[in-house]
């Protein structure tokens, strides 16, 4: 388990919205939403390049800890509004999904 704030700082993530108070126990990367719902677990960071409002619904429903938007992707305006309203924590990064996964792997056990 690792504190999200610590991980976000180490990984150089940009904080978009939502509370950063949460423990992280792993990571799931994927863009097909049903696949994410099938495999992402409570306490995972979810790394994706999807930016529409359904990302917020999926993050909320499957209780992933936080969403990280890879490759410099920005949330759509309605998605950002919904994320703020539901207090879903979202970060952004210019790094690729692969690079982000390697950083999670490096720092989660540090």
């Amino acid at each position, binding site marked *: 388990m690792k504190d999200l704030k610590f991980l976000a700082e180490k990984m150089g993530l940009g904080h978009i919205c939502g509370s950063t108070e949460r423990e992280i126990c792993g990571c799931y990367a994927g*863009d*097909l*939403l*049903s*696949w994410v*719902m*099938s495999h992402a677990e*409570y306490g995972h960071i979810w790394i994706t390049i*999807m930016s*529409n*409002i*359904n*990302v917020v*619904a*999926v993050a*909320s*429903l*499957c*209780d992933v800890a936080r969403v990280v938007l890879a490759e410099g992707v920005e949330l759509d305006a*309605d998605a950002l509004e919904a994320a703020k309203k*539901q207090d879903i924590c979202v970060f952004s990064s210019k790094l690729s999904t692969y690079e982000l996964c390697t950083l999670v792997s490096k720092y989660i056990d540090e």
Partner: protein
Amino acid sequence: MSDEMIRFHFDVDGDDFSSAGAASVEVKKRLRQLGFSPDVIRRVAIAMYEGEINMVIHADGGTVEVEIGDDDITMILSDHGPGIANVELAMQEGYSTARDNIRSLGFGAGMGLPNMKKYTDDMKIETEIGVGTTVIMKVNV
């Protein structure tokens, strides 16, 4: 059936992905208020969301009834869409008839019905071509 069973009703708009999931999020909130375990809440929320999305993609919307009993939570999703031609095929992971524009939103992976089955303890599909589909799911509590 208990006289004190709690029931919720939701209308799901067709072809509106911006509000798809609203009913599931609301049910999740209410189950949390009622004190259900995180595992039960997650299973109900995901199964119902997949059902909602299916109704938006394939059936121009529909309705969801949620009944909270002493032993289980039942979700009844009904639509007047085209019906499912081959249920066995539709239940296979990866099989999808969703259009490309749906896939660009992150759906259409062919995991909807399999996820609904995976996260529930019982699932029945009643479907008739040209008439509609009703999916009944139960999650034991």
